């Protein structure tokens, strides 16, 4: 039975391929200028050979806002854009290592300043127009253009000097860096190569930022990704179709992707996403909460739930260490006296029950954290970082050393007071929309109550919170989470550097406020321009240890990446890097394509 089906599927695949081939051959060559007879240089992907056809449905929490990689900043747009565009060198989300993509090979000069990339030959955009080096030149010209306001532009600037590009021949291009860059070829990941033939005119008219709205006509948009635009229905769905010119094949030589269509449904509530997945209306699900994951795991008849392991998201508590300006309220100044004492911070850190956070917030599907690098980031983790267990005694001892003491009220409640007999009380702000964060904060509140600290939980709506932390800076402490986008130190640059906007305890400093922050700055910059992994790792470990010693961020926990798929989805291998389940969308296939198509 299974053999017969396998035979059948094979035949179907080859028929499909034949049809595609005939169709490509039948296209009139006059359609394109200077049609070269370059052979298509496919990338062959290892892994299970699937079957063609069918439609895969996934849900998005919100509508994507744009299809334009130049202006996209939100996760939903990026998820869609990821399926429609391709980059020169790609980070494999499973191995966390680089692999060739549009560039079939690259060479780095000895001084680390020149990257020579060779494009695959015979590639075409999803509208059939051939790709060449000019498209790459155009792409980076646009990204670097200040008037375009591309959000990623900063990544192409080194010490104020931009990266420059030089065309060698129609397939070879040289990137010239002003300084050697430790990240190496990883920096090419995520730069969607744009079609010059479609975008050059609007770019010159200064309108490129207005392109790529969701109502863009399908034939006005093209990319090099596995799928291309088909249809958008406002508020409901975005439909992508197979890119017939895609440049990857499976081990048997079948052109990818397998799927005919990729449908993004807009389902604004996380719970509704779960229900839709449960009813079989969507095929994949990711970004699950632990609670919903266990509900789905309980009845695993039609779907397979996968805990992909710890991700790159880290949650932490931070105390307000901003420079006291003239406007700082006296009340906050008083509290900052405690916060600035490293012993106080260490006492708080060791009093927090991280094990309870992992168990009660993540139902055990997460890991306790003592440093910024999560267990999900396998290569960069500092194994030497201490992992002390919770100890109220140790905490009390630290507080005593720092000059704090306790008074006991008539009803037996003890209160922590500082050397001037002021009771220690402060508030912790957190995001009201994130139940995990609120829960963590409530646990911390209870942990600290046992030390005699009176802590109030103040959930704030996200913008109000950001405003307080980064603008007015009027808060005592906060609990937040950050997700690194790549397993490389540089993706957390804004957290590490004292000038960074995410250096939350004291963001955007003009000069490092403390010697240890200056030291972190120095180490970070050193690793950025160091070339071997081993040396960078050593520097990075040092930074993590400094952070541990001074505890400006008190790390709490990191959740696992929880995903699921219908059993019919083949090649489902979720990764802990985004996009968790769609990173290998070109290889995903439906075991029983006919059933799914009729749905």
């Amino acid at each position, binding site marked *: 039975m299974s053999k017969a089906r396998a035979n059948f599927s094979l035949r179907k695949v080859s028929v499909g391929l034949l049809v595609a081939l005939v169709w490509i051959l039948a296209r009139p060559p006059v359609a394109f200028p200077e049609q070269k007879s370059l052979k298509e240089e496919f990338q062959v992907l290892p892994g299970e050979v699937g079957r063609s056809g069918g439609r895969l449905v996934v849900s998005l929490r919100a509508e994507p806002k744009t299809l334009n990689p130049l202006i996209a900043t939100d996760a939903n747009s990026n998820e869609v854009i990821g399926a429609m565009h391709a980059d020169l060198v790609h980070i494999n989300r499973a191995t966390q290592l680089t692999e060739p993509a549009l560039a079939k090979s690259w060479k780095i000069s000895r001084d680390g300043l020149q990257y020579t990339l060779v494009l695959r030959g015979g590639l075409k955009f999803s509208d059939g127009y051939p790709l060449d080096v000019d498209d790459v030149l155009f792409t980076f010209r646009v990204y670097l253009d200040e008037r375009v306001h591309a959000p990623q532009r900063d990544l192409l600037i080194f010490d104020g000097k931009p990266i420059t590009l030089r065309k060698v021949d129609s397939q070879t291009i040289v990137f010239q860096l002003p300084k050697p860059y430790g990240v190496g070829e990883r920096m090419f990941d995520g730069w969607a190569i744009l079609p010059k033939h479609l975008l050059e005119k609007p770019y010159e008219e200064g309108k490129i930022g207005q392109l790529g709205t969701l109502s863009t006509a399908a034939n006005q948009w093209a990319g090099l990704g596995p799928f291309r635009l088909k249809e958008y229905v406002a508020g409901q769905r975005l439909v992508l179709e197979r890119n017939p010119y895609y440049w990857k094949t499976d081990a048997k030589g079948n052109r990818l992707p397998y799927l005919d269509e990729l449908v993004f449904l807009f389902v604004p509530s996380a*719970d509704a996403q779960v229900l839709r997945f449960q009813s079989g209306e969507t095929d994949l699900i990711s970004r699950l909460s632990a609670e*919903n994951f266990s509900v789905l795991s309980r009845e695993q008849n039609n779907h397979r739930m996968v805990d992909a392991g710890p991700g790159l998201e880290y949650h932490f508590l931070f105390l307000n260490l901003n420079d006291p300006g003239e406007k700082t*309220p006296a009340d906050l100044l008083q509290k900052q006296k405690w916060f600035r004492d490293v012993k106080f911070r260490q006492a708080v850190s060791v009093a927090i029950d991280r094990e309870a956070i992992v168990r*009660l917030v993540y139902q055990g599907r997460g890991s306790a954290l003592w440093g910024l690098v999560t267990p999900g980031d396998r290569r960069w983790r500092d194994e030497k970082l201490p992992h002390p267990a919770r100890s109220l005694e140790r905490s009390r001892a630290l507080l005593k050393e720092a000059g704090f003491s306790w008074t006991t009220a008539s009803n037996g409640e003890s209160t922590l007071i500082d050397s001037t007999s002021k009771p220690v009380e402060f508030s912790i702000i957190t995001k009201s929309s994130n139940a995990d964060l609120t*829960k963590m904060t409530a646990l911390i509140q209870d942990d600290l109550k046992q030390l005699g600290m009176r802590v*109030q939980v103040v959930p*704030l709506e996200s913008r*109000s*919170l950001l405003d307080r932390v980064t603008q007015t800076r009027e808060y005592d402490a906060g609990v937040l989470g950050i997700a690194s986008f790549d397993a490389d130190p540089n993706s957390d640059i804004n957290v590490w550097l004292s000038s960074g906007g995410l250096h939350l305890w004291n963001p955007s400093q003009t000069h490092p406020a403390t010697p240890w922050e200056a030291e972190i700055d120095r180490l970070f910059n050193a690793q950025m321009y160091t070339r071997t992994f081993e040396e960078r790792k050593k520097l990075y470990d040092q930074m993590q240890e400094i952070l541990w010693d001074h505890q400006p961020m008190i790390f709490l926990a990191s959740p696992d990446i929880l995903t699921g798929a219908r059993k019919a989805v083949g090649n489902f291998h979720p990764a802990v890097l985004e996009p968790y389940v769609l990173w290998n969308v070109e290889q995903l296939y439906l075991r029983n394509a006919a059933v799914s198509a009729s749905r």
Partner: protein
Amino acid sequence: MKGKRVISNWIVLLALHAIVILAGFFAPYDPTEQDRKNPYLPPMRIHFVDAQGHFHARPFVYELQLREGSYDQYQENAARALPLQFFVQGEHYRLLGFVPSHWHLFGAKNERIYLLGSDSYGRDQLSRFLYGGQVSLFAGLLGAGITLFLGLGVGALAGFYGGWRDDLLMRLAEFFLALPWLYLLLALRAFLPLAVSPLQAFFLIIAVLGAVGWARPARLVRGVVLSAKQRDFVRAARGFGATGGYLMRRHILPEASSVLLTQAAILVPQFVLAEMTLSFLGLGVPEPVPSWGNLLSSLQQYSVLVSYWWMYLPALMMVPFFLGYLGLGAGCSSTESRTR
């Protein structure tokens, strides 16, 4: 007959409120105390007959144990019976906010018992329900009171005087209905220093919500007043030289009372529920303070809805309260119509 029903309704309602006000005594535990080993513990069943078939006059519960390797699956441990004790000493609290006491209606020796189960932090749901009622009923009555007071005033003025005053007030009402208050509340929260306790901030926000919500009852009252002042007996009274205030008090407002009481009966639960929306925007009652709103909002999570049936119980227990308010509305309007 009707009068009797109204009275018994009043008695029940007062008794319910008394239980909530004296929550410290009726609740076995501090509502914020976490029992991290027992998250989502189902309600313990009260037994009179033990596993051996013996009858006990003193009710007891069996200890619940977490199943090996699970996060929220428990089983009864028949070897450990926990007899229920009445009038026990327990945690300290302040009755009515100032009488210190540590007597509780019931409890068990050395062990925590959960008659309504526990929440995700292992906190006693029964205690949270009772204490939460203090916050939420106060918020509900405060919000509804302010709204109705303003609504009645404006509606009566607009309806009684009519003409340009009516026009002006009703346009003002539309204005108030149309404005995006959520944004104002967000702004308000931002201007409040964090040092203001979150609970005070919440009551302030409820008061503001109450103050801006007058437009609806005002329109309802105005409609009724418009009609009432043209009634024969009102015109007659006016003919006898009754003053506006007298007419309003004696004849017109009683007409509006039915509408008002119905509004009140609906507004109180609405203000209790409004907290859930407010929480979403960070304007609600924050952890760990219990409130009915945050008890109900756990029902809005799919996983809770399908996994932990006892989380519905607080909602069920709120029904008699709200029925009581509805009864007041119905009762009063029928006494009105009888006396007329």
